[in-house]
């Protein structure tokens, strides 16, 4: 499962930072304890030296013991009292033939209190540090990654057809992001150039093909009127005429596709879709003797703002598609609402991958009467106007939905 950068970062920090701080605290405590015992030893031995010095100067007047401070005993008087709460140091001394035993004391309570207080303070500081680091990290990564999120948003919007121009800032103040944006800029430039070249090639090729097609067509028109035409020759000419016309149709469709890609349908008007679809249905019923059984629900007053020529191609191709790829005795259900058009028609299942249905030259059957470009025109037009196009097949019925999502 993927998480955002900030979440990941936080998670790392919150996992590792407490461990590091805990280890640090343990180390700190051990060191603190070690230093405090060392200091106690030092203090004890210093006290020994001082007291022994004082004893040497005046062995008689110095009291034999002060509780909590020291105790001097002759060697033979073996009595060892260890007061609790005190650390002690015992050493042997000899003076004028007498052996003395000097024990010095210091209270340990104060030391352990100090150690605990220092340690508690340290813990508090560490926790404060943890909170501050997480907070600062959050703030700073938000700020740091700002250019990255901007880049992300721009590239999301990028579309080679509709939004080819993204200019990413290459002075973000962060070298890596500058590099990233520079690379992305040159990448999109290359993609755009390749795309432009390709669509211009298609458009130019289609235009250049028009003239020879026109010549062939005109020669065929003359040829079929030659006197003394034999039936076999006529048959050949009929086939050539048909193939040539198919080529012309294909070329025209390709040209329209190229023009859509090249944004050559900029003019838009308000189109009464309800009226248009009514008109198209009437025309097709008139055209096809075998028009399938039609049940229609057309909401009145559905409008779109788009190029009228393209919208007509869109809807007429969809309706024609439902007629051509129907079965005999089949049906068509057409439903138009303000938000979508649904066309359902009976038919045989697709023999190809449905995801390729709207691609160029993918024909459901080897029917020579179609060019294989009708639905790719539909797709391109929908793409141009940001309409959603959906295809499903269930219960021997093809369904195509067009969702109008006009900005």
């Amino acid at each position, binding site marked *: 499962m993927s998480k955002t950068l900030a979440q990941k970062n936080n998670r790392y920090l919150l996992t590792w930072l407490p461990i590091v701080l805990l280890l640090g605290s343990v180390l700190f405590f051990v060191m603190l304890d070690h230093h405090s015992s060392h200091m106690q030893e030092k203090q004890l031995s210093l006290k020994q030296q001082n007291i022994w010095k004082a004893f040497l100067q005046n062995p008689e007047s110095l009291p034999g013991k002060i509780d909590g401070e020291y105790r001097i005993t002759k060697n033979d008087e073996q009595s060892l009292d260890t007061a609790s709460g005190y650390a002690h140091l015992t050493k042997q001394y000899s003076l004028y033939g007498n052996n003395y035993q000097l024990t010095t004391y210091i209270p340990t309570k104060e030391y352990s209190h100090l150690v605990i207080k220092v340690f508690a303070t340290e813990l508090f500081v560490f926790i404060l540090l943890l909170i501050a680091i997480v907070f600062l990290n959050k703030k700073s990564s938000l700020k740091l990654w700002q250019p990255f999120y901007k880049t992300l948003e721009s590239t999301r919007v990028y579309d080679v057809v509709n939004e080819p121009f993204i200019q990413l800032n290459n002075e973000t103040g962060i070298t890596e992001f500058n590099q990233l944006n520079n690379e992305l800029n040159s990448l999109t430039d290359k993609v755009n150039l390749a795309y432009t070249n390709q669509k211009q090639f298609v458009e130019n090729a289609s*235009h250049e093909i*028009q*003239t020879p*097609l*026109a*010549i*062939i*067509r*005109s*020669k*065929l*028109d*003359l040829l*079929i*009127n030659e006197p003394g*035409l034999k*039936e076999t020759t*006529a*048959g050949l*000419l*009929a086939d050539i*005429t*048909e193939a040539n*016309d*198919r080529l*012309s*149709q294909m070329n*025209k*469709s390709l*040209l*329209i596709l190229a023009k859509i890609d090249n944004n*050559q349908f900029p*003019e838009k008007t308000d189109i009464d879709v309800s009226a248009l679809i009514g008109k198209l249905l009437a025309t097709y019923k*008139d*055209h*096809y*003797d075998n028009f399938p059984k039609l049940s229609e629900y057309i909401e009145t007053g559905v409008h779109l703002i788009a190029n009228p*020529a393209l919208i007509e*191609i869109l809807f*007429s*191709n969809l309706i*024609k598609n439902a007629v*051509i790829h129907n079965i005999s005795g089949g049906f068509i259900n057409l439903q138009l609402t303000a938000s979508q058009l649904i066309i359902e028609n009976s038919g045989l299942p697709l023999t190809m991958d449905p995801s390729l249905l709207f691609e160029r030259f993918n024909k459901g059957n080897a029917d020579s*009467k*179609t*060019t294989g*470009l*009708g639905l790719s*025109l539909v797709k391109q037009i929908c793409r141009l106007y940001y309409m959603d196009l959906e295809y499903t097949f269930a219960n021997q019925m093809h369904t195509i939905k067009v969702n109008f999502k006009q900005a």
Partner: protein
Amino acid sequence: MKLLVIEDEASLRRSIVDYFTQEDFLCEQAGTFQEGIQKADNFQYDCIILDINLPGGSGLKLLDYLRKDKKPEGIIIISARDAVEERITGLDLGADDYLTKPFHLSELYARVKALIRRKYTAGSNIMEFEKLQLDLSLKILTYNSLPISLTKNEYEVLLFLITNKNRVVSRQAIAEHIYGEQADNLASFDFVYSHVKNLKRKLKEKGAGDLLQAVYGLGYKIVI
């Protein structure tokens, strides 16, 4: 009838000239912008067929020149470019019609004839061939003074065939004439077949059975 064909593609130009000459048109041809201007300046034509992409200058410029010069000829633009703006510009500059390449010669011929009819025959709009009479303004067909009722499509087919009378008109040409230049409409040939079948039946009922002939698998022809 005098016709000037201004088209740089020699082969296509020859086809057009051939087709129209067979229909008793007097044809002149020009292959460049300058040649076109020269011929249009020096002679009077009934109709000019004008290509847009010409060596030496745009056909639209030539059109503008002719219209500024108050030339009365009917002008039909033929162009490989099917841009709506170009079509509109052409018609705004005073062209009478606009046809996109590739076109059928029968279609071009029908357009020229319709244009000449619109421009030069005031009043009567009736075509008469022996017993057959076609009233273009009322869209009524009579044979032997008996009216034959036709659907809109049947009428269009008949008018197209009569205009190109005594010639074989391909099914494709008829389909395009009726259904326009809609993309991907190859299935429309089947409709042509059914329209012609009905038309033939109706003519036969009134005793004009052999007027409309099918020519092998190629197309149809009206023999008058």
